[in-house]
């Protein structure tokens, strides 16, 4: 039986790619007195709801989506954060 899942993917700028948004947020945090902040990187969080047979199929399909469209491997890395069954 097919079930419905919610999966969350995190996309971040790759190490070595300058991230001016992260840099600006870091500066703002420092100004607010959070001076021990070493690094801030800003990315995207994508939530997808899909039908699948099981969790491993969800992971496989989400990975394919990342490779094909959601992330650009030249500048970004992606990570599946979690998979959750929804009704």
């Amino acid at each position, binding site marked *: 039986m097919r079930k419905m899942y919610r999966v969350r993917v995190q996309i971040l*700028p790759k190490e070595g*790619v*300058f991230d*001016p*948004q992260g840099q*600006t947020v870091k500066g703002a945090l420092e100004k607010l007195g959070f001076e021990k902040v070493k690094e801030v990187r800003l990315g995207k969080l994508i939530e997808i709801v899909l039908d699948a047979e099981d969790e491993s199929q969800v992971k496989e399909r989400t990975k394919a989506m990342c490779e094909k*469209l*959601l992330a*650009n491997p*030249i*500048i970004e890395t992606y990570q599946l954060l979690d998979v959750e069954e929804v009704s």
Partner: protein
Amino acid sequence: MRCAVVVFPGSNCDRDAFHVLKNVFGLDCHYVFHEDTFPPNEFDLIVLPGGFSFGDYLRAGAIARFSPVMESVREAANRGKFVLGICNGFQILTESKLLPGALLRNKNLKFVCKDVHIKVVNNATPFTCLLERGQVLRMPIAHGEGRYFVSKDELKEDQIVFQYCDERGNVTEDSNPNGSFLNIAGMTNERGNVLGLMPHPERCCEEILGNTDGRKIFESLITHFVRRQEHEAN
């Protein structure tokens, strides 16, 4: 020379490009909708115009890249037809992997709209054959995501066609409007028939606009095309 200007939802420089090709250079020019395809020998030049295709959602060019028309563009490029990507068109070409690298948010996070100077660093391409190496052109830019990035192992230096510079041709940090790696403003593919650039040559082809530096790119292309045809005829 038969030309196509591709129209994506959100393209906004398609008419400018069409006007220049048709009315300034008198070429046979056609619009091609992003959902359509065309045979690989149909057009000699395909222009991917500036704009915000698909709202620039996800990443600029990331969604446009999967339009049906892009399969035709890829096949035409493989056959050696000219492909010119201007601004958003450049972003679509990098997302399509027809050109190396990627274009990121400008370093200062601002949309930059102004005239810049660019230097011709490679005049061995069909797009620059009438220009001198080191020649400085003035051209308008208007983009928020123009910071060119490419990894060192992916970069082949002779693929750099234009670099941002000052009016004397010095490639400096101050003259880099968006934080591009090596001040890169325009790149070509290994074969030299695909060019992507952030500046807008189609916006500076007429005296009435106060600048005709963009003409040289189109004139180069036309000259190269005519020479190649003559060569093939002999």
